[in-house]
């Protein structure tokens, strides 16, 4: 019968799934015989003793830095702050940011008492031993790491934004939720890692002026802002900038990040935008005063965080926030289906009108240019004053042509080895690097903590070390008041998963209500059931345990023993 089905399918020229095809056949052939699939086998029980104590950090650095207690802003509608405190856990951001903070402590550049950020648009030196292209988190982490190992290093960072390096996550997270809107407008917020102090998004360091850099005996870090590097000559070891100036170097880092993608229907003129940098945050925040409706296109991290953030900030202003995406639920490319749908319910509770499972057919702008009408693939029309397109990032690899560097066709980005080396004396890190992970294979990661971790590793290696990528980066997200998570490893909804969730009551199993409020999701590789990713859902500060599970190559059968290492109740 299955064969017949396949035949009918083919005769109507159906593209049929090979994996589904033959297995359907088998299942159909043995239709009523129940196959008991044993999920945890009873043999091989490897205990995970001591998993919480052992440190796997490749950098002693991470272990030395003290996790800061999370103290949230009082009166915030989001209550997680107290939760972190209660559990004595480290907030996700604390883990990511502590790396940078401790970098500051350890490096303490003997910097001249010259210009604080932003430095004046100074003359650009024609040589710097270390040139870092891109002025984001990656370059900043690299600069700190370089100065840690080489205390008199002269580091020149060149970025095309008009700011010294800053942290991007708050632009879609805290700045929308911090109750002091005026402070938020000035990029200030209460940070988990600051002990409740108000901080801003900028990284703090004694930046010196690029002009002074060559003459500083103790070296320093200089930032050239608003300049794009247009070519890289890896043989002559020289870069050229968009104003024609040239800088020679000994060592160079490609940390050019990415540019937001958009959709063809939003490429013309109209009230559309993407979101990546400080000006995007300021523009969108301002828009809440004039717009009555904003549509977010995209159901990933950025789209979902922005939807929730805009809904919270715009609640009192009567702005309608909608979100549309093709997946079954928010973060559908990341979370198992049921969890993704559950998350969508939570996003709706914050006040976002979510349209999951919906693609976009066309978009038209009204004559006065003030309204967009989006037609979805099910024929519905969504009208908005503004559309924010959050459909992913395109790594900035323009320099590959002049530098003659290899682009990874599958993952995108510059292809580098496990030491992040692209070619002699040229490294790549952050969003733009397709690197070889000794544990999980070749991949490219677009997350803040990865920018930290890989930027630091590149920095160390630029000073002459030869460290491979060993420390798994993590990432985190907060989607509304009920959803916060941290994760590390390969987190992809295409992988098989095992979720372990805490049940609140002992009610009868006959009427189960699937409660996804607290638990751990294990992502397994398709072949051997090895755990390749761990996501802790409303459980914080457990990433070291998660990293160890991955590096010790635990498998599905170990899960029943691992469960007790996470507090799921």
């Amino acid at each position, binding site marked *: 019968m299955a064969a017949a089905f396949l035949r009918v399918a083919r005769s109507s020229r159906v593209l049929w799934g090979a994996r589904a095809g033959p297995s359907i056949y088998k*299942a159909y052939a043995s239709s009523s015989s129940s196959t008991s*699939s044993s999920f945890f086998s009873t043999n091989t029980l490897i205990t995970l003793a001591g998993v919480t104590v052992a440190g796997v950090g490749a950098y002693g650095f991470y272990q030395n830095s003290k996790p800061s207690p999370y103290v949230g802003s009082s009166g915030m509608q989001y209550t997680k702050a107290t939760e972190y405190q209660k559990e004595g856990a480290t907030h996700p951001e604390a883990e990511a940011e502590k790396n940078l903070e401790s970098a500051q402590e350890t490096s303490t550049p003997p910097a001249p008492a010259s210009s604080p950020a932003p430095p004046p648009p100074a003359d650009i030196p024609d040589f710097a031993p270390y040139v870092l292209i891109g002025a984001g988190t990656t370059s900043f982490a690299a600069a700190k790491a370089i100065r840690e190992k080489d205390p008199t290093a002269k580091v020149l960072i060149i970025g095309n934004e008009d700011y010294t390096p800053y942290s991007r996550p708050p632009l879609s997270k805290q700045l929308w939720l911090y109750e002091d809107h005026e402070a938020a407008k000035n990029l200030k917020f209460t940070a988990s890692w600051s002990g409740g102090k108000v901080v801003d998004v900028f990284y703090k360091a004694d930046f010196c002026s690029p002009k002074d850099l060559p003459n500083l005996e103790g070296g320093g870090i200089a930032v050239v802002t608003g300049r794009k590097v247009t070519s890289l000559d890896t043989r002559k070891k020289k870069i050229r900038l968009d104003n024609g100036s040239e800088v020679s170097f000994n060592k160079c880092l490609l940390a050019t990040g990415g540019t937001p993608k958009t959709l063809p229907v939003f490429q013309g003129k109209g009230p559309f935008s993407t979101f990546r940098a400080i000006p995007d945050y300021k523009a969108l925040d301002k828009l809440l005063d004039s717009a009555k409706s904003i549509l977010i296109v995209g159901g990933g991290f950025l789209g979902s965080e922005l939807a929730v953030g805009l809904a919270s900030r715009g609640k009192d202003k009567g702005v309608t926030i909608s979100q549309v995406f093709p997946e079954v639920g928010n973060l559908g490319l990341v979370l198992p289906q049921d969890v993704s749908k559950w998350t969508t319910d939570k996003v709706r509770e914050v006040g976002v009108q979510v349209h999951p499972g919906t693609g976009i057919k066309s978009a038209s702008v009204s004559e006065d240019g003030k309204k967009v009408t989006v037609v979805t693939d099910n024929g519905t029309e969504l009208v908005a004053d503004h559309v924010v397109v959050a459909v992913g990032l395109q790594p900035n690899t323009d320099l590959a042509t002049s530098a003659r560097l290899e682009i990874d066709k599958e993952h995108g980005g510059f292809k580098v080895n496990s030491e992040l080396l692209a070619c002699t004396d040229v490294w790549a890190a952050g969003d733009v690097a397709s690197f070889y992970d000794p544990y999980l294979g070749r991949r490219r990661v677009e997350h803040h903590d990865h920018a930290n971790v890989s930027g630091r590793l590149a920095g160390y290696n630029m000073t002459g070390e030869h460290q491979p990528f060993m420390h798994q980066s993590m990432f985190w997200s907060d989607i509304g008041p009920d959803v916060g998570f941290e994760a590390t490893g390969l987190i992809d909804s295409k992988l098989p998963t095992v979720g372990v969730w805490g049940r609140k009551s002992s009610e009868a199993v006959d009427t189960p209500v699937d409660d996804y409020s607290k638990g751990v999701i294990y992502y397994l590789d398709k072949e051997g059931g090895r755990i390749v990713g761990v996501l802790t859902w409303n459980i914080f500060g457990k990433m070291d345990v998660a990293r160890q599970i991955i590096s010790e190559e635990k498998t599905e059968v170990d899960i029943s023993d691992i469960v007790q290492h996470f507090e799921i109740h």
Partner: protein
Amino acid sequence: MSYCKRDGKDKSLFLTREDAKDPENIKTLVEDEETYGLIAPDGSINWDCPCLGGMANGPCGSEFKEAFGCFHYSKEEMKGSDCLEQFKVMQECFQKYPEVYSKYGEDEEDEEGNSDKENNEIPKEANNNNDSNNNDDNNNVNDEDK
């Protein structure tokens, strides 16, 4: 009480506080999970069967269910011959997601060699040679269903 649930390739264990502390309980729970194949004991289709490779949950899940469901319950002499409309809709949906479905198509040719091409070349209406096979298949399955 704790329970275990399966949704295609994804499994969820919902554990009570007591059970979470005892690995043995968790193992027992998972082993006791009632699983069956594509066809449930009552004859209905188990859309969560892992054997479907996630087809029922993919971007064309509803179209797939329509087509496959129609085929499964078809009482026509040439089983599924009343489902061509549903197949067409499903196929149109598949074409909208080439990145999801076309690669399966390629795999299939790899695994099954030429049979695919042969079938494609046979015009739908003039598919007489295969009819008898179809009927055989039908009979077999019908027997099993009984």
